[in-house]
């Protein structure tokens, strides 16, 4: 535990957006058109604090690295705010088999390199989106509500990445899901938006179920839910799931059936939140929300929660190689499928949505390789993707704003003449997304391909394995230089898997972990890279090149966006252009992340390799991108955007892509219809049986009264008769009682 900075700084990061959100909710109506002020101020403050924390962590890492061997030292700082829940010492019961420690959930935040990185990304992109929204949402009647939701989202997301307890992660997992629902359904009066919000929430729920069950299994297996080491009520140490004690222990993590189950449930949760197969169906529909919301949540931050979860629980995954492989399979398959569907979309935002799914698939594929390179590459790609995807979405929003709400690319074209800044920044983002050097996406994608390649062709990396101990330390500390390694077949850094497989007991899915699988995944990823470039530039050419056409809804809007919208675009464009080169060349990010406690586990750290630039893969990647761009140019550069479309060109396969592989229809038939049927039944039971019972209880007095009413007929003699009969009954009763 190293005192990086006062723990209050860490608390401030989520606290400022929370305060901003509450203020906006309370004073929104009063502030009116200035309702953005608390939100922007809160997120800006949060960003400032996050940057300070990042620098602090980096300084501590540098301080800790001196005097140690090449293995990175874990850097973390835990702040416990208060004890949220706790049950007394359960050890007295004595009937629980494993680790019957007392149940305590402290509200604890942990700062480590991974958290610090993500905090900066979240608050940074959040701030730019907030500034952008000032212009985009200017005329919207729900202006204050939007900023309250954005601030609440930033709070939830920062807490999610900072929480040091699985239950807290679950809480904020749900919270970001709720913010997403509220933002997708921001224009709730529109039926499509409401349906899309509901769909997103329900599909996320499936993932949340996985996370909940995983939490239960974690508690049963490890006896605690905390990341960090804590003390039990009687003073005995309770090793946290990702605490220093357990990380140092070679057998600290459970494999086999239970371990695989936990990992698969985590994967399910991540699929739900990060829109992977088979729970990806909500993300394209989520484009019904305002574009800044899409940019923030469904591109840069919320959907990365799944990546964060898998990266954080890397030690657990390392104990189940089969589960890891499945993660990669899911990721690569999703990437390919989404890319295929994206090629035939005509809605600019839908293209970007499928592109998001595809890139997230890349990140999962990288995570699943189980090497330190894979993990850091995934985070690297997360960072760069946040930049260029947010940029692309905001650019699309700018286009939509100018075109009066029209986003169908076939209805406009040649916009670079009327929106030069948007066009330029969009082009930068597209180049980054396609993976063209020297933009950001090129380097991160290259790293991912390297990780996949190293698993598919492990022998090709063999010779560098022995060189790791000697050169590692120097490589970590010195600026990186392009490693001119000899071998013509391609000199690659070899990530070592020797440590990983031998530690854990065999799991049920280990058969998947074969080099053949990895090779297939590598080729799929390469193909996806080409497709990515293709559809991205198809969108660029259709939108910004060709004859200038403006739809009728644009009216007088068809001009460049105001500076409040274009300045964030420019900032993100600069980031997309520069960050990749900078982070890669200084090995800043990978080395920084290597100090994350999760990545210092022996299983992960053993796969560490010195940084290298893989020319072979870079060439293959660039070739794929170039092919994609050329084909897109052939089809769309300079042409009218409502010309012949991809679907027709591809024929029946195009129809398959256009219908998104019929996932929605299959889900509707398998799940939605039976549930609707059950719901109809339940509604009938509710209306006729339950309400009928209640109504019957209500009607009973009426019925009874209707009968008794006839007693009051107005005829005096009948009244007298009733009196006499009553008296006789009483007398009879008395006589009977007297008789005995």
């Amino acid at each position, binding site marked *: 535990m190293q005192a990086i900075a006062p723990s209050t700084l860490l608390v401030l990061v989520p606290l400022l957006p929370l305060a901003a959100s509450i203020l906006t909710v309370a004073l929104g109506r009063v502030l009116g058109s200035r309702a953005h002020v608390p939100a922007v101020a809160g997120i800006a403050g949060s960003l400032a604090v996050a940057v300070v924390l990042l620098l602090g962590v980096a300084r501590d890492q540098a301080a800790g690295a001196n005097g140690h061997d090449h293995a990175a030292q874990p850097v973390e700082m835990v702040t416990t705010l208060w004890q949220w829940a706790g049950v007394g010492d359960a050890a007295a019961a004595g009937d629980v088999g494993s680790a019957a420690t007392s149940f305590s959930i402290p509200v604890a935040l942990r700062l480590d390199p991974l958290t610090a990185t993500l905090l900066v990304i979240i608050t940074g992109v959040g701030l730019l989106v907030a500034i952008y929204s000032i212009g985009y949402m200017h005329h919207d009647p729900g202006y204050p509500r939007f900023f309250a939701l954005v601030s609440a989202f930033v709070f939830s997301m920062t807490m999610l990445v900072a929480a040091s307890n699985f239950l807290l992660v679950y809480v904020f997992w749900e919270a970001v899901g709720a913010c997403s629902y509220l933002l997708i359904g921001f224009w709730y009066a529109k039926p499509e938006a409401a349906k899309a919000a509901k769909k997103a929430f329900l599909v996320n729920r499936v993932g949340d179920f996985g996370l909940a069950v995983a939490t239960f299994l974690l508690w049963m297996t490890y006896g605690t839910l905390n990341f960090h080491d804590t003390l039990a009520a009687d003073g005995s140490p309770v090793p946290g799931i990702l605490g220093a004690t357990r990380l140092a222990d070679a057998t600290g993590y459970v494999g086999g059936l239970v371990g695989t189950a936990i990992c698969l449930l985590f994967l399910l949760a991540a699929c739900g939140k990060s829109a992977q197969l088979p729970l990806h169906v909500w993300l394209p529909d989520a484009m019904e929300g305002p574009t800044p919301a899409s940019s923030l949540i469904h591109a840069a931050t919320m959907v990365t929660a799944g990546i964060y979860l898998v990266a954080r629980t890397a030690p657990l995954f390392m104990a189940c190689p089969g589960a890891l492989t499945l993660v990669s399979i899911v990721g690569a398959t999703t990437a390919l499928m989404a890319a295929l569907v994206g090629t035939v979309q005509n809605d600019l935002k839908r293209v970007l949505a499928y592109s998001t799914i595809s890139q997230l698939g890349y990140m999962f594929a990288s995570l699943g390789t189980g090497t330190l390179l894979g993990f850091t590459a995934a985070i690297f790609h997360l960072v760069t993707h946040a930049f260029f995807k947010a940029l692309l979405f905001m650019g699309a929003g700018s286009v939509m704003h100018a075109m009066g709400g029209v986003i169908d690319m076939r209805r406009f074209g040649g916009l670079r003449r009327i929106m030069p800044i948007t066009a330029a920044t969009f082009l930068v983002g597209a180049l980054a997304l396609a993976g063209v050097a020297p933009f950001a996406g090129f380097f991160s994608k290259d790293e991912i391909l390297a990780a996949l390649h190293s698993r598919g062709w492990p022998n090709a990396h063999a010779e560098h394995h022995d060189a790791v101990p000697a050169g590692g330390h120097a490589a970590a500390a010195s600026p990186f230089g392009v490693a001119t390694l000899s071998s013509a077949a391609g000199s690659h850094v070899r990530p070592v898997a020797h440590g990983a497989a031998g530690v854990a007991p065999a799991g049920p899915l280990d058969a998947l972990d074969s080099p053949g699988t990895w090779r297939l995944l590598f080729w799929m990823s390469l193909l996806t890279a080409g497709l990515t470039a293709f559809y991205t530039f198809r969108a660029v050419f259709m939108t910004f090149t060709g004859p200038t056409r403006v739809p009728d809804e644009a009216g007088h809007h068809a001009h460049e966006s105001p500076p409040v919208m274009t300045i964030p675009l420019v900032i993100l464009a600069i980031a997309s252009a520069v960050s990749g080169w900078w982070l890669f060349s200084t090995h800043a990010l990978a080395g920084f992340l290597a100090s994350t406690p999760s990545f210092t586990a022996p299983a992960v750290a053993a796969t560490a390799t010195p940084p290298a630039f893989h020319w072979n893969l870079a060439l293959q990647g660039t070739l794929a991108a170039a092919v994609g761009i050329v084909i897109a140019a052939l089809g769309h550069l300079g042409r009218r955007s409502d010309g012949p479309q991809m679907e027709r060109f591809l024929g029946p396969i195009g129809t398959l892509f256009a219908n998104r592989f019929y996932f929605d229809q299959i889900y509707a038939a398998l799940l939605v219809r039976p549930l609707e049927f059950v719901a109809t039944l339940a509604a009938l039971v509710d209306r006729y049986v339950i309400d009928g019972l209640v109504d019957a209880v209500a009607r009973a007095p009426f019925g009874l009264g209707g009968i008794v009413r006839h007693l009051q007929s107005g005829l005096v003699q009948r009244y007298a*008769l009733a009196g006499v009969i009553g008296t006789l009954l009483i*007398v009879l009763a008395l006589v009977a009682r007297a008789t005995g």
Partner: protein
Amino acid sequence: MIASLMPAVSPGTFLSVAVAATAGSLWLLLPRGQAGVAERTSRWAGALLGIAALGCFIATGHRLGGLGEEAVFLVVSLVAVVSGAATVVSRSPVYAAIWFAMTLAGVAGVLLVLGAQFLGVATIVVYAGAILVMFLFVLMLAQPAGLAPYDRVSNEPLLSAVAGAVLLGILSLSIGRLSAEPPACCQVPSKAAALADAPSPAEPTAAGDVDLLAEHHVARLGAELFGRHLLSVEVAGVLLLVALVGSIAIVSRGGVSGGDPQAARRAIR
């Protein structure tokens, strides 16, 4: 004599049969909106059933011990009861009033046999002489032409007949119980006990069958009335005055049309 004719059943059964027969006979006798043969048939049936009911009551009384040594009493009580029944079931109100006069005669006879000579006579004088005549006057004033429809129907004849019969049964049962055991509450001080020891001046029949109020009957009644109950007498006088004044006041104010029945009838219809 009568005992030999009696079947060997318990008094309770007899009483139940008597009650049922009473209810049935009353129901048959009450006007139920029938005409012609049906009505005559039900009236005859009702009369016969009523006689049977009376017979059952008499038998029950005999079974309970000590009945009707007084033949006179039996006759006058029969007159009273039968006339009373006729009062209730007569279709014509005037006939009902006349039967009521007959009832009064019977009741006077009962009272005389029971030793209340003054009251017996007073019944005739006040009731039959004054009240009944008043009834007849009113009938004369308020009688629609012909037999009115409301005289030919009854209001819930079955329930009323059953209620009356059940009441009669309960009362008979209670009275029968009185003869079974001595009532614990009815300890009359002084007189009864004193006279029980002393030789009775009246006719020596069964124990307790002596009228202790026979001697100087009216004088002693008057003394009792104006002695112990003087205040009540005065109040009764005031009550009579109030009734007199009140009835005149109501009449003089008149009804809707100042007492003109024809105009009222036209207004209502």
